[in-house]
């Protein structure tokens, strides 16, 4: 009898173990009167994690003791894969970070934010530049609130320019001047004047600026084979194969190759996002770094507004609390923290704080670059295939840089694989 009970007990215990694995919730829990809201965000290292914790501390103070914010992070490269896995199992964290270029694939996971939701969050549309909210919009529905606004910059190593006897880049630079400088630096210093990229906007920005075109056209169709775009992209690939002003990335798995080249002083210029502006102008770097807007092509200056934000999961059980947390994380108090940490805030009122927080050594350069960079920038267009195209790009590009296939063939291959 006792043994039977034992065996039965064992079976129940094992069964319970199995089912408890299936019974995890969607990122909310309410014990003892407090609600826990999970905030899922990308973070690559201890430093950026600490920045998020500092933001969280301020947000926690704003939402009070009834709500506990819990931070969960994954590195940028894995964030969306993990989010996909969470979506598949219905466990999307109540407050989840989203990147503007990725939003199209995730709209169903997020709660659309109407006037009522914004009111609960305590956020007004007037707090933003008219274009700033567009990064979190799809088909004119708002799915999240941006915490930063970004565009792409040209970053340069002033020491190498000086060494080569080349005048520093300006915010009025043209593509021709850029190429000229890259050639001179490569010839005069033996260090490559530029580092090409295989990463999404880090590589697309110059071909876009040169051609004045986006890889997705007005109708939302993939337009990688537009002759003007192909010509501009071919010029970009030739920077490695013909002009020799850049080395070639060693592997399609190395998406962060170009920043490493720049920071190690092995390339005088790179294209990267404004989110890294303070990092590349930091006094701790072994060289003096600077930033300017993207050089202008024949069609004039061209830049796209990028950005990321937070949304509330559509299946969140504690939507009201989640909206409060969303409001706190994107509101002016946390925006100020972000500005002091070197992030360019999304809210208009907080943007001056960014410049105030800059060290004197880089304040003038970055203020000028930000003013010029966001002037006339247009919204980035993406479509449903964009994630796939962006994932496949590095593999095609490394062949181009290795001189084994032409840029036209690579773009044609991407276009034919993913244009549906």
């Amino acid at each position, binding site marked *: 009898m006792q043994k039977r009970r034992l065996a039965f007990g064992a079976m129940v215990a094992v069964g319970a173990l199995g089912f408890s694995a299936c019974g995890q919730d969607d990122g909310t829990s309410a014990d003892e009167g407090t609600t826990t809201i999970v905030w899922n965000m990308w973070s690559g290292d201890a430093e950026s994690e600490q920045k998020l914790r500092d933001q969280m501390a301020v947000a926690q103070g704003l939402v009070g003791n009834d709500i506990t914010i819990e931070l969960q992070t994954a590195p940028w490269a894995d964030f969306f894969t993990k989010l996909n896995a969470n979506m598949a199992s219905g466990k999307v964290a109540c407050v989840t970070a989203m990147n503007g270029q990725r939003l199209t694939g995730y709209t169903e996971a997020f709660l659309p934010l109407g006037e009522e939701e914004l009111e609960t969050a305590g956020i007004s549309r007037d707090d933003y530049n008219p274009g700033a909210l567009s990064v979190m919009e799809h088909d004119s529905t708002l799915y999240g609130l941006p915490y930063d606004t970004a565009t792409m910059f040209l970053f340069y190593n002033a020491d190498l320019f000086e060494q080569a006897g080349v005048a520093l880049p300006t915010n009025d630079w043209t593509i021709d001047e850029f190429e000229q400088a890259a050639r001179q630096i490569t010839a005069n210093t033996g260090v490559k004047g530029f580092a090409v990229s295989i990463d999404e906007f880090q590589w697309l920005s110059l071909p876009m600026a040169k051609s004045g075109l986006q890889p997705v056209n007005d109708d939302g169709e993939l337009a990688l084979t537009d002759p003007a775009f192909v010509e501009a992209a071919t010029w970009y690939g030739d920077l490695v194969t013909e002009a020799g002003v850049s080395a070639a990335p060693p592997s399609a798995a190395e998406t962060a190759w170009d920043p490493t080249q720049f920071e190690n002083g092995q390339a005088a210029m790179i294209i990267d996002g404004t989110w890294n502006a303070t990092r590349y102008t930091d006094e701790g770097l072994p060289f003096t770094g600077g930033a300017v807007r993207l050089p202008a092509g024949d069609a004039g200056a061209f830049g796209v507004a990028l950005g990321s934000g937070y949304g509330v999961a559509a299946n969140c059980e504690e939507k009201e609390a989640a909206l409060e947390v969303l409001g706190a994380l994107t509101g002016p108090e946390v925006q100020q923290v972000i500005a002091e940490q070197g992030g360019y805030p999304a809210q208009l009122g907080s943007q001056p704080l960014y410049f105030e927080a800059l060290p004197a050594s880089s304040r003038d350069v970055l203020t000028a670059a930000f003013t010029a960079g966001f002037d006339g920038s247009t919204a980035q267009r993406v479509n449903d295939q964009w994630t796939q195209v962006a994932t496949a790009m590095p*593999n095609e590009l490394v062949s181009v840089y290795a001189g084994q*296939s032409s840029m036209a063939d690579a773009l044609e291959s991407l276009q*034919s694989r993913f244009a549906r």
Partner: protein
Amino acid sequence: MRTESSIRPPRRNSLHRRERRQAFGFITPAVAGLSIFTVMPVGLAIVMSVFDWPIFGEREFIGFGNYIELLTDSPDFWPALRNSVVFTVLYVPVNLVVALGLALLLGPRIRGRAIFRVIFFIPVVTPIVANALVWKLVLQPDGLLNGLSTSWFGLTLPNFLVDQNWAMIAVVAMSVWAGMGYNMLVLTAALEQLPASLLEAAQVDGARGWRMLRSIVVPLISPAIFFAAVMTIISSLQVFAQPQLLTGGGPGTSTIPLVMFIYNTGFEFQDLGLAAAGAWLLFILIIGVTAMQFRVQKRWVHYEH
């Protein structure tokens, strides 16, 4: 006598029943684990593969639609299948030959052979991410290999990880290095079991060197070779980590194996139905190849009974 026999059967029955219950208790954890973590996912994968099953949103039954899409329409499925097969065809023979070579070299006569075995086994127990990082440092243009070649011979080597002709070879080379230790151990164990009397008899008959290896040693350890071959083929059809970390599947699609295709389709491109169908096609391929091996083994594997 009579009373004994009339009492015994019920006793045995109750014991029998009790033992059955106990056995039931003992196997429950294993069965529960198997059903929750193996049977259920496998069943779910079958269901998924006949649905249009996005990660989020409406699911729709489409019959064999996913399979048809993979076989006729998907731009990356056939290249991925080809890559998996090419990897297997290159990797398995090299792995077995190297492993057998090492096992023979580290045979009973070498002093300190235990240390060598440990050294060759280290890559097997090292995390593959660390292995890949080291190989990347060796293979990239400013890496060790090209550095040595240019400084010693003035010869610039190709950029192995992005060269269409070399990328797969680089992946295979790294995989052989990382995986040879395991098969070496399996074959070493088999070599040490060889009956000394038989080897002596062969020597007396004048068998030496190559002849000894080909006619005596290999047939005697053929069950171990068969085991190693089956397991290595299965694992190499499932290759994922090495190309993912080393080449990212590039250049183009030249090193994307089937498992990476499945992973991308499911978790990057959010099409779980298509990914599940891909996984089933991979399963069919593996089962088919394994069944064929078992059929062919009768011709070359010798079991001592």
